[in-house]
């Protein structure tokens, strides 16, 4: 419990420092607070509207005060006003959140589905041709830029084989399931392949080490079937590295989502952020960044706390601490 609180504290510091820095970066260099308000509201605004914005977002105070009011807004989903869309940022982002969340979850799931069997087989048949093939595949998957991978997938699956639409549409599973799958499949693959490569690399290395440990030899000496040794004894002990790799590669995944949503024309947080950056929609950009950082921080916390679910020794050590 104490460990959990300590970890939450650390991550809270990161979140606060980052979001404060983002706020300052967004509002820096505007001349005066009325000028800033004008910019944040965008377009033609009356003096009265400017006055109201200054009052509402405390733009005439220092950054720290502005930040505290922003933070209060963030917690209550009052994320400001989108100048480019003339609507509240919360309303703008709410539907887009689902696109990005679904993409991310699918990508992690597909990535694990590809990576775990590959890593287990590779570690089991170490230095065989299948292991080498897997290593080459994950080397390429790790290095290929998301744009390139996405374009190649579009080329193969939609232009050559006419299987899936190249340009997607954010249809949700609860709207039309079949269309949802068709539209999300290529974006998911584009995101999942690099993830799978990272997971495979880490898990394979961990499994190779685990398979040499005494308790795995003992499981052999007990006459356990290979499958059981691999999946029940060895994989369970390498689970920590899977969870860790999902956590540490989340930043890359979210960065990839920006590219993939743009490339496949999906309306997500990532593509919205790019649009807002280009249209100087300050409130929206700030909300998108804060949101993304929030996700990273929360997932890392979950990853950390899940260690103790996986390894009873960690649970014990923390109970004593």
């Amino acid at each position: 419990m104490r460990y959990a609180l300590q970890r939450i504290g650390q991550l809270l510091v990161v979140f606060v420092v980052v979001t404060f820095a983002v706020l300052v970066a967004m509002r820096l260099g505007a001349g005066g607070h009325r000028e800033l308000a004008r910019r944040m509201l965008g377009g033609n605004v009356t003096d009265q509207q400017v006055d109201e914005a200054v009052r509402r977002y405390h733009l005439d105070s220092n950054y720290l005060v502005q930040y505290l009011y922003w933070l209060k807004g963030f917690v209550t989903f009052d994320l400001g006003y989108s100048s480019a869309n003339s609507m509240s940022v919360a309303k703008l982002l709410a539907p887009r959140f689902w696109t990005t969340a679904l993409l991310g979850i699918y990508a992690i799931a597909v990535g694990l589905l590809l990576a775990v069997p590959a890593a287990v087989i590779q570690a089991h048949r170490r230095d065989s041709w299948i292991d080498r093939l897997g290593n080459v595949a994950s080397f390429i998957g790790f290095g290929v830029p998301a744009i390139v991978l996405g374009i190649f997938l579009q080329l193969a699956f939609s232009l050559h084989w006419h299987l899936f639409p190249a340009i997607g549409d954010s249809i949700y599973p609860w709207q039309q399931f079949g269309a949802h799958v068709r539209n999300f499949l290529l974006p998911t693959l584009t995101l999942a392949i690099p993830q799978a490569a990272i997971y495979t690399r880490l898990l394979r290395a961990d499994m190779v080490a685990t398979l040499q440990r005494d308790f795995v030899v003992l499981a052999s000496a007990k006459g356990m079937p290979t499958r059981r040794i691999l999946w029940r004894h060895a994989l369970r002990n390498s689970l920590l590295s899977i969870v860790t790799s999902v956590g540490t590669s989340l930043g890359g995944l979210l960065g990839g989502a920006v590219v993939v949503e743009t490339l496949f024309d999906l309306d997500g947080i990532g593509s919205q952020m790019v649009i807002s950056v280009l249209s100087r929609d300050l409130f929206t950009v700030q909300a998108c960044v804060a949101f993304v950082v929030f996700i990273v921080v929360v997932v890392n916390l979950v990853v950390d706390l899940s260690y103790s679910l996986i390894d009873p020794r960690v649970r014990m050590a923390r109970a004593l601490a």
Partner: protein
Amino acid sequence: MTRPRPLQTAGRPAEGPLIELTDVRTHFATERGLVRAVDGVTLTIQRGRAVGLVGESGSGKTVLSRSIMGLLPRRGVVRSGSIRFEGTELIDAPRSTLRSLWGREMAMVFQDPMTSLNPLMRVGEQIAEPLRIHLGQSRAEARDTTIRLLTEVRIPSPAERLRQYPYELSGGMRQRVMIAIALACGPTALLADEPTTALDVTVQAQILALLSEERRERNMTLVLVTHDLGVVARHTDEVAVMYGGKVVERAPTAALFRRTRMPYTEALMRSIPTVDDPPHTRLAAIPGRPPDLVEPPPGCRFAARCAYARERCHAEEPSLVASSDDPDHHYACWYPVGTVEPVALRPADPAAVG
């Protein structure tokens, strides 16, 4: 209390050879060359006996026990010779044959109970696993058997232990769990590889006593790998002393201690402290180092460190022969203990001179 007698031991012949080794060689391919860890061992292990494999570290005793099990790395191992277990050839047997023997017919207890149990699996499940898979026991049956096994290896409040993880147990307790795992399916042979080296001295005696007792009650064959002649003296019927990948002396335990023939065995015995020694007696360490197993010396492998070595010992390798006065006592030595006077040692490391 009455102890459970596993079904498997019923109907087995009580005597006769169980494990027959003929010219067994296990070599490892390394960057330096082929390491001849076990280099031509011929040995017969009788049913129901306790056999000690003794030697310094690097003598090949552990590799020999793993060779019998077939628990060797998949790659980089060159094996030859013959290992027969109840008549079945094991050297080039497919993995499936070995797996059908492991746990059921042959079981092994490892040296380090700290690393040999799966840290993320409850103790109960680790013991129940072979019961469920090999004997097809139901969950409830396996649980009952596990509790009986834990009682048998003298673990207090066994029902509570089932739900514990290995890190919650002491080293001695873990080794008892390992023994329970090994005994679970009532194996014909139990190979114990330095089962007490990693434990406290007081616990060592208990674990060894437990192993001996189980062996007697189950009429099980025990192969006890150890560097400790004291352990061998108390817990085995026969001893094979190994040096440089070979068996250099083999005899019934009593005979070996009564009349040691091989100078290496004698040197090993002198390195054990006894209660009768006056205080501050200097223990006789064996000078020099074990031989290079990549390029073993031509003659007797112990010659460089032997106090009795003559010219012949450095040139010609002695083979393992039966003693003229005791057909059960074999040794590989040109000048057995008592036939010649000790001489000054030649430099242990020829490279240092030449």
